[in-house]
Structures are given as C-alpha cells and as structure tokens.
C-alpha cells in the first residue's frame, strides 16, 4: 500500500525543489520590500498585494502540496478563497455608498491645540469629519 503515489520524484529531488521554492520566496520578499521604498502612488498597494498573492500561491501549491495532491483539497482551498473574495467584494462595494461608522468606545486622545471658544462640549476631531 502506498500513501504517496503522487510523489514520483526521488526524495533528493524533492528536497532540491523545496530549497528552490524557499529561494524564490525570499527573492519575492526582497522585491516587495524594495518596491515599498519607491513611490508608485496607488500602485504600491497593488504591487504589494500581487506579490503577496504570488507568494501565498507558491506556498499553497508547493509547500502544501496542492499541485500534486488529490484535487478535493485544492477545491476546498479555492472555495474558501472564493467565499472570502465574495465577502470582501460586498464589503468594499459598501464603502463608497455609506456614511462611515464611528467607533463609540474610544476616548478622544488629548488634543494638542485647545478647542476654540464656543466649540461643542464634546469636540469632534476635524479628521473624522473629512468624509461626511
């Protein structure tokens, strides 16, 4: 009985494959740190998340064996991320169509400038009014 028919490679070849995978992941980490020092405007977050997704996919496919494993595990994994995607999509559709919720359990941190005379008793920070 063999529980690992899917592993056709020799153990040594497999170890080399994992080491090469680690090397690629470290290179991608260096790229993502380097790119963060360059200002691409709103492109920075896109680059950072794209590289993160590439890294996560490499970890999933090679280290977590999804590439050579039985497809049912990959289906479960992909389904999880699809549902997360649906969740996030509706979340961010909501962002521009609603007024922002205010956290209610926060004390206003000590303001550096004293509120002007005649200001409301509970000073509403200027920053929180930006979007209204």
């Amino acid at each position, binding site marked *: 009985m063999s529980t690992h028919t899917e592993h056709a490679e020799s153990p040594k070849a497999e170890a080399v494959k994992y*080491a090469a995978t680690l090397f690629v992941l470290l290179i991608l980490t260096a790229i993502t740190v380097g790119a963060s020092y360059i200002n691409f405007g709103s492109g920075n977050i896109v680059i950072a998340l794209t590289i993160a997704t590439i890294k996560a996919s490499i970890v999933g496919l090679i*280290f977590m064996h999804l590439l050579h494993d039985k497809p049912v595990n990959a289906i479960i994994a992909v389904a999880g991320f699809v549902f997360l995607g649906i969740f996030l999509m509706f979340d961010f559709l909501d962002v521009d169509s609603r007024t922002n919720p205010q*956290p209610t*359990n926060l004390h206003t941190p000590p303001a550096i400038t004293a509120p002007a005379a005649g200001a409301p008793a509970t000073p509403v*920070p200027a920053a929180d009014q930006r979007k209204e």
Partner: protein
Amino acid sequence: MEQQFDTSKIGMWLFLVTEVLTFGGLFAGFGLMQNKYPQEFVAAHEELKRWAGSTNTVVLLVSSFTAVMAVLMARTNQGKKCAMYLWATVGFAGIFMCIKAYEYSVDFSEGLFPGKYYSHHGDLIAGSHGYATFFSFYFMMTGLHGLHVLIGMVLMSWLAIRARRGDFSDKYYTPVDLVALFWHLVDMIWIYLFPLYYLIT
C-alpha cells in the same frame, strides 16, 4: 489507511478554510478603516519597525521550508532527521516570537496601545481616532497570528518527540503532514500581514 489519511487531510483543509475566513474578517475590517483614515494609517505604520517585519518574514519562510522538509523526512522513514527539522521549525518560530515581543515592548513604551489606551503623543492629526484604530487592528491581528505561532510550536515539539521515538514512517505520518499544513497557513497569513502593516504607503 490511505483512506484515513485522505479523510484527515480533507478535515484539516476544512479547518484551514475557517482560519482563512476568520482572518479574512479582520483583514476586511482593516481595509475599511484604512479607507476611512488613509492619512492616519500611513502615518501610524511609520511607527512599526520595517526591519523587524522583514526579518520575521524571512524567519517564517525558512521555518516553512524546514516544516516541509520534516514531512519529507517522515515520509521517507528518517525519523531522526524529521525530529531535527521539526525542532528547527520550533526554533525559527521562537525567533519570530522574540522579535515580535521586542516590537510589542517598544510599542508599549511609546504609548502605542490599542483603542482607548492609546497614549502616543506627537501625531500629525491631533485628536483623530485613526491612530488608535490602526493599533487596535495591529495588536488584534498580529496577536491572533502570534497565538497561532505558539500553538504551532507546541504541536511541533510534541511531534518532534514522537518522531524521535520512531512513531512515523511512510505508512503513517498523518500528524506531521497536518501540522505542517497548519504551519504553512500561519506563514501564508503573515505573507499578507507583512505588506499591509509594514509596507503601506
């Protein structure tokens, strides 16, 4: 036996999906608040030490490599090497936690606490809730991630002792495989935490 192995693995993957969704909810909240307080979030992330986050990323990636090597050793009947790789993984996880503890202690000494306990002075936009919100999410997410790292360390120490004893072989290495899967997921979550917290601009 093979069917038992496959079933265990499916169960583990289902658990990992629930983990993804747990952290996904936190990521969604972080994204919403970043959208609300863009200036404060960019300013607040400057307080985090980029070298510490980068080092921790490298440490976790290397620990993922040692974890996958431990599975390979268990599967090829090399129990002692499997135990060695598992202890190495525990060691890297320990380094990760030490760096994280150092970061937390520096944050606390600067008054960078979550929520209403936030007492950092000299922020660009005085009186804004944005900074405190950033650190609430920061401590919640890295704290939950750190808890996963600790759980992984305990599990892998237990497996290392068993591997040394010769419990695992090509016939049976299910626990090593499943804990390694858990460990890779912890690594995967950090892969997203790192750019979102340390590198946003």
